[in-house]
């Protein structure tokens, strides 16, 4: 059952991704992107990362993509698909490089795959599940976030603050 769901989500995700790249207009790309994000969120659920799945949908697919959409609309961007995609030799070259990269990744994953991962899969999964059972989905993430990784967390907060200020400053028209 899980495999079938996974394959479904995977197909949607890849299709969405391709849609982003070949989308005729920014809005089309954006919608494809939302599809991808949603299906990746679904896959998160399959990996028992419920909290992240929620965040993915709420923040990513919701907030950030809406922000993109606003910008696209604000700028009233385009219907100029021909000019938007670099065809010709460049496209071919990019395909070659990307294909080679894909091949290398494939080789890497197929060659080592899960067996290349250090650690005991079942034990780690069991440990996570135990923590989730004990503290709840949010608590399982929140606990290390506010203890071991609190400095990084705070720094991230600072980063966001800086980003907000920067965005305001940059986007504000010069008067």
């Amino acid at each position, binding site marked *: 059952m899980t495999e079938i769901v996974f394959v479904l989500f995977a197909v949607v995700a890849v299709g969405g991704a391709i849609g982003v790249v070949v989308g005729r207009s920014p809005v089309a790309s954006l919608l494809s992107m939302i599809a991808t994000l949603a299906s990746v969120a679904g896959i998160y659920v399959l990996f028992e990362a419920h909290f992240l799945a929620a965040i993915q949908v709420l923040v990513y697919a919701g907030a950030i993509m809406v922000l993109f959409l606003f910008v696209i609309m604000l700028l009233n961007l385009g219907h100029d698909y021909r000019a938007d995609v*670099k065809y010709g030799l*460049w496209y071919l*070259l*990019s395909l070659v*490089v*990307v294909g*080679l*990269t894909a091949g*290398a*990744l494939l*080789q*890497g994953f197929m*060659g080592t795959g899960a067996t290349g991962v250090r650690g005991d899969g079942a034990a780690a999964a069991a440990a996570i599940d135990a923590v989730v059972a004990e503290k709840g989905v949010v608590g399982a993430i929140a606990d290390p976030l506010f203890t071991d990784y609190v400095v990084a967390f705070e720094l991230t907060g600072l980063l966001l603050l800086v980003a907000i200020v920067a965005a305001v400053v940059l986007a504000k028209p010069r008067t």
Partner: protein
Amino acid sequence: MTGVGTAESAMTALAGVLSPSPSAPGSASGVAAQAAEQWEPLLPGLIVLLPLLGFVLNGILALWAAGHSSAAVRAGEEWNPFAGPSRPRTHTLPTLIGPGVMLLAFILALVNFAGMPADLHDPVIRTYWSWIATDTISVDAALQLDQLSMVMMLVVTGVGFLIHVFSVGYMKDDQGYPRYFAYLNLFVFFMLVLVLGSGYATMFVGWEGVGLCSYLLIGYWFSDRDKSDAGKKAFIVNRIGDVGFLLAMFLLFNNFGTLDFGPIFAGAEGQLAVGGTTVTAVTLLLMLGAAGKSAQVPLHVWLPDAMAGPTPVSALIHAATMVTAGVYMVARSSVLYALAPTSQAVVAGIGVLTALVAATIAMQQYDIKKVLAYSTVSQLGFMFLAAGVGAFTAAIFHLVTHAFFKALLFLGAGAVIHSMHHAAHHADGHLDEQDMRNMGGLGKFMPVTCVVMWIATLAIAGIWPFAGFFSKDEIIWYTAAWAGAGSNPFGTLYTVYWAVALATALMTAFYMTRLMVMTFHGANRTGAAGRSHIHEAPRVMTVPLIVLALLSVFGGWINVPDALQESFAGLFGVLPMSEWLHHWLEPVTHAAAQIQIAGFGEPAHAAPPGGGEVAWAMISTLAAAVTVAVAYRVVGTNKYVPAARDPGPAGVLRRAVYNKWYFDEVYDSLVVRPLLAASRWCWKVIDTVVIDGFVNLTGSFARLSGWTMSLFQTGQVNMYAFVLTLGVLCVLGAAVFLQ
């Protein structure tokens, strides 16, 4: 604090000079050491220190005076060296200090001379402080008094004093007066260090020091390009010789572990084989040094140019003292030379060749100082001939007499030039004040100068009973005597030397007479305008001339050969000091004489072809007299014209001689120009192209690679992504496929 340290060491040095610590003279025999202890020289350090003191005081005055004249220069005044004393007070003190310290030094030297016991066998050494001392070498700042250095000290301080006095008059109008005396005093200081130094290293200090003073004094009128060129040339050529001296010192040090005279001469016979490579190399290298300092072929080229200096300087440095330092050094190293017959033959050969070459050139010069310069070179050649044939006493003897009569000749020429200079000031158009073609008939105007110079001329020509007769005759005779010595391997060569020396002696008589005639006799060629300003030199200049003239007459009597004593040459036994110098120098030279006799056998006393010593003495003085007479007639009948109208000598040979056998030209094209070209090539090609080219190439390579990479930086995000991915691909590929 450093200043304190310097002052401290200066105080130590000063204290050392005033109360020196006596030290055992070398490792020589203890008996003689006792004899030496009996005699306590009087303040030998002060003799050396006095001229240095004069230098310091005059130097301060010179800087003070120069400050004033430079203010005038800055104010835009034209510099005229003979503008006369702008401030007479810059003259008073140097006049007192310069000759004053010399007089004191000379008196001290005389006192020491009087007190020196005749039987002093080992030199008295006074050590002041340890100069260069490491674990293996120890060079002391020490003075050594023995018979040889005593003679030299007397000549240097005595003749030096007279020339200082003469300078007071000669340099009267010069603005650099204090500077002149500062240099002159410094020169005497270094010269005394040279002759009194107790080892080769100490001697070398004086050796290079006098070279420095020579450089400064030749280029004394440094605003004149030619004059400062001449100074530079003198210094560089001298330094070529100095390299020889340095290397000789190194060789000696390697063999003896010391550079002091005492141990080296005492151990030389035991440690060095007769005619061995080491001793031959040492002596030849020393000869290179001597050739540089004493202007021997092929390093003689600087001395004629050195005439650019003030004439008293030429008299003191380039005739009487510094240039004879080479002879002194060879005589000092007599033991080493005696051990190296080959070197001796080379030294004598160089000497005789120099004598001949210089004499030929002197015969065709018009510049009065150039004639005297080449005459000096030639006479130095005689001294080296003497040293080369082992007649070290004769060499020193000729050195002494030459100091008298050549100083006299130069000072006389100085008086002439001084007078001509005034004439030139008033002459119509340019008048070369040193060109003899512009002179003639000066005897009428300058009788004293004329007479004393004739005395010097007769002395140098070797006419009995003047000083030069005895000394030159002794050299020529010794050459013949050693040529005929039983087992001299270079006997034939020595005979040739003897013949050439004899011929050269006659040439000397000729060119000196020519000089006298052209200058003082015949019709005057100065021109009417200038003629009225020719006058006799002031007394401050003529008195030293007269003193030197007396010395030129009687100076030779200190060493009348025994063989001649009872003949005409010794006034049939009247002269009391038969072979006095010979006996006086005996302690210094006898070791060499012993070695030489052991090697060559006794000198053949009747050796000169055709008779004994008396006969040859008569023949040579007669020949010289005849030459003087003939030259007087021949030159007197020549019609000379003033330099401005004279086309110069005609004929290939005459021109070659006039141009000094083209030595300068040959050096210029064989040494100077190639060296400059090589230097320029090194700079422009090796430094700039090869080395820097390589360096810049590496830099360019880095730049090129950077530029190539920067081509990817188009500013286009797509391109960046592409390159980035390419990089990722490389890393990933390497990680995946190359495991």
